[in-house]
């Protein structure tokens, strides 16, 4: 039996603004996000960027914990395959994320909630477009209900 006595679910539906966590590799995608900013390309303010040394630094727990703490969508951005600063990190990340996303789908979690995109330092426009598109996808999916932790809801 689970007792969550103090948890109450907020039944009032407010205008939904999805919270998005973007893990960006330090060498390409984070620089890409920087470029997007300095080129005045807009992307949603509710995209929270977490800089990681390499896309393969992200392990499945990071993704799950982002959902636990209230993310509605999680996106991982790294260098294009072949361009990894550490030569091969993103190749490993690619396999891991493929398997993880497939598992989440298998468990019945909406498959659009997670995404991997390769964004180079020169692709400010791609970064902004990707984020806008991802935010729109998540908005359509609605709030994350299946992979949330009730204790973390305000």
């Amino acid at each position, binding site marked *: 039996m689970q007792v969550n006595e103090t948890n109450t679910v907020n039944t009032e539906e407010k205008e939904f603004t999805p919270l998005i966590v973007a893990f960006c590799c330090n060498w390409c995608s984070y620089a890409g996000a920087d470029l997007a900013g300095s080129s005045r390309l807009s992307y949603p303010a509710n995209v929270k960027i977490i800089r990681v040394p390499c896309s393969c630094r992200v392990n499945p727990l990071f993704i799950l914990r982002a959902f636990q703490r209230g993310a509605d969508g999680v996106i991982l951005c790294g260098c294009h395959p072949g361009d990894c600063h550490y030569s091969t990190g993103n190749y*490993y990340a690619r396999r891991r*994320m493929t398997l993880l996303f497939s*598992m989440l789908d298998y*468990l*019945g979690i909406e498959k659009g909630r997670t995404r991997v995109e390769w964004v180079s330092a020169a692709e400010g426009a791609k970064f902004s477009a990707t984020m806008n598109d991802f935010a729109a996808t998540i908005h359509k999916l609605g709030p994350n209900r299946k992979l949330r932790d009730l204790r973390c809801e305000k």
Partner: protein
Amino acid sequence: MREINEMLKKKVSELLENGTADRIIGWQAGEFCYDVTPAVMRKDNLDELFYNGFCGANQSKYLIQESLEEGKVLALLKPCDTYSFNQLVKEHRVNREKVYALGIPCSGMLDVDKIKALGITGILSIEDNGEEIKVATMYGDKTCKRTEVLQERCKVCKGKEHKAYDELLIPDEDAPEVPNGEDRFELVNKLEAMTSQERFDFWRGELSKCIRCNACRNVCPACSCRTCVFDNDNSGVAAKSNADDFEENMFHIIRAFHVAGRCTDCGECSRVCPQHIPLHLLNRKFIKDIDEFYGEFQAGEDDTAKGPLTAYTEGDCEPSIVMEKGGEA
């Protein structure tokens, strides 16, 4: 089975006598006919050793500890145990030098919970010869089909070939026939064919039974970390209970992920689960995906091949493949 038992006893005492090994991880009878316990035996208590249809436990994990200790240990490996053994040797968790592996035949192991689930309770003795299982109970004699009460892993048996051994009790080709392997991905396929919501409901139902006893983790030969991330207070995810649905999901996703590409599908996790959560279906999903995305791979087939998650090719599929390929939305 009785002959094999006698052969085994003779062989083991021979190997201990001639100093090939100084102890053996064997099986010891319990209170009832089915509750067999793994036990380390030496020359003096070898008469307690026996082998029957309830010796299903995969003992290769014990070799991690045993191979750290002095002297050589004799391990009895059923064909499917050799996969886990290979995997542990490959990961340098078991010191191959300290183990003498004796391959023993297996014709499928029984699951007492499946017998009980048929309504056969109050079990006093079980006779296991061939097709039919005779069970004497406090409420009279019962019978059931052997195929009905085989352990999950035996229903999808990998075959009678030992993948690693120093010696075989009987040559693989002379070993008794193993059960006909069913398609191990049958249920995975079935789940994949469901809608996303159906899958979600199925797994919620199963995972919400989890009492977080850690039996699945502690028995798993692939879960050989000295300190598990879920026991590490600095990991931020350490917990002793599932205080929220999320933790049930997280624990099992991560547990399965951490053994992905290394799991030999030995089925111990499902065997020991007190709530009978079909954990093997999580592992098999990873195995199936790996097979489909990166080519057929059986962990533990040998002790050298690189695992699928420690390898890559430049042309690997993108994670977006899940969008196209994955189960129904």
